[in-house]
């Protein structure tokens, strides 16, 4: 197996809210074209991890993206231009704007640096999510839950991400839609997009991912290839058992 270059790596990443340490010495690594998942219970620090990577929260420790250490003063805008894009748990769509306008705004960072090829990207996004093409002129606020998640992902893809970070994409969705969303996540790999997938739905996440981390109370409790993790008795008991979340 050839080892692909690392796109993102954290070394001893710590995040504190005041005196409370939410993340303690996190080391995660994502290779190009890989899907890496971070699973774990509510409050384990999964969203905090994504927010700190995105520069939305101050952190200590080292974050290297595409081989370059990101400074503490990293701004979201700069990261988006460099292809690091987050789809947040709350989707954060522009509810009073049309689906197409939402997608267009996903390409804002590209537009700003003079890249005018976003219309083609929009066709690709419509290819991945035909539903969005049907709903093109509809206001984002009137979409169903599944369509909202599709729009949030489509909008992020408009930025031509190299690493797409998805925060709980299955949250609040019906099982059939969840299957559809994960099918698309798997498809992203073929498009050459690396994915960092944060999920409570451990079963679905481990099925689609190459590698997984289990985050518990702010620390990495376990990590391994996702196939191995899925067979690990501790994971089965805590996250995949019948009592686990679906």
């Amino acid at each position, binding site marked *: 197996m050839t080892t692909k270059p690392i796109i993102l790596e954290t070394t001893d990443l710590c995040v504190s809210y005041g005196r409370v340490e939410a993340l303690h010495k996190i080391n995660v690594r994502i290779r190009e074209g890989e899907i890496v998942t971070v699973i774990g219970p509510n409050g384990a620090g999964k969203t905090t991890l994504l927010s700190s990577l995105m520069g939305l929260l101050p952190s200590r420790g080292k974050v290297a993206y595409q081989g370059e250490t990101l400074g503490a003063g990293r701004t*979201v*805008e700069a990261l988006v231009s460099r292809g690091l894009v987050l789809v*947040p748990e709350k989707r954060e*769509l*522009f*509810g009073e*704007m049309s689906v197409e306008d939402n997608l267009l*705004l996903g390409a804002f960072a590209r537009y700003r640096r003079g890249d005018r090829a976003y219309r083609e990207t929009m066709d690709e996004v419509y290819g991945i999510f035909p539903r969005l093409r049907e709903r093109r002129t509809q206001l984002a606020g009137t979409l169903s839950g599944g369509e909202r998640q599709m729009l949030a992902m489509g909008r992020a893809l408009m930025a031509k991400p190299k690493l797409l970070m998805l925060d709980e994409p299955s949250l609040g969705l019906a099982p059939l839609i969840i299957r559809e969303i994960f099918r698309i996540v798997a498809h992203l790999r073929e498009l050459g997009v690396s994915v960092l997938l944060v999920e409570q739905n451990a079963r679905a996440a481990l099925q689609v991912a190459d590698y997984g981390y289990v985050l518990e109370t702010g620390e990495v409790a376990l990590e391994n290839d996702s196939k191995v993790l899925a067979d690990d008795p501790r994971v089965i008991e805590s996250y995949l058992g019948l009592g686990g979340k679906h």
Partner: protein
Amino acid sequence: MDFQIHLLLIQDGVTNGAIYALLSLALVLVFAVTRVIFIPQGEFVAYGALTLAAIQAGKAPPTVWFLVALGAAAAGADIWQAVRESRGSRIPAILGINLGLPLALAGILQVAPLATLPLVVQVILTLLVVVPLGPMIYRLAYQPVAEATVLLLLIVSVAVHLALLGLGLFFFGAEGTRTPSFTDGSLSIGPATFQYQSLWIIGITVLLIVGLFAFFERTLYGKALRATAINRTGAKLMGISTDMAGKLSFALAALVGAFSGVLVSPVTTIYYDTGFLMGLKGFVGAIIGGLASYPIASLGAVMVGLLESYSSFWASAYKEVIVFTLIIPVLVWRSLTTHHVEEEEH
């Protein structure tokens, strides 16, 4: 009261109302994007009018040195930030935009035969001096506290308003000025007579409103501003920087303010402090629109203009009282009909 007087009052009211409508649009825009209640909006009217008056008198307007000074301060702040973020490569661009361009403009204003230039060029020079003040003021006064509460931003606005008012007195003195009409004379259609300047005001206002509408509906930067107003976090995650959105909305507000001053100064004598009252009347319109709706805000502003012209006919001494009293029933009506979203979110 006969038909003629009605026509006159309506014409007067709609003309002033058009200006208030422009100001109310700027207020709604700035509030939606930055949550700033932009009290200094009116100062841009006065600065625009008085800068144009200075240029027409053949003098380099003192505001251009204010522009250079603010530019130097903004450059200082940006360079400090760039150094801290170890992005020193941006320093030449920062210096060029904030200091180079204002100095070049100051140079042009020193040597050009200002008084004899055509009106269009004089207006363009006025806008070049006054409009960049908007984003620079945002950079210096608001950007460092952009995440603060609406109340704190309001207090900053009061401070900026008082500072600009005092500087206005210093730059232009206490005397008022009136600039000549764009076109002298009036147009008679049947029994009605229209001042050309009123037609200019209404026409250009309509054009500006259409232009703003097209900007927000058709351009990606306009959509980015709307997106910031709708969902700040979502916009940020798409790489729409809050700083950029703030500066852009302040630039638009300054443009609208300065343009209003240029339009209105042939029909009203403008003093350094005249803008404040005009801004407040625009604010009444904006409040009628709930600081959120552009069409209702501009209709409300036209209503304010009409109310003002009728009350100056019937009860001249109470003109301002009547106009500002309008805000009370509007607030009562709004507090009864608006439901409070903030409370539901928590």
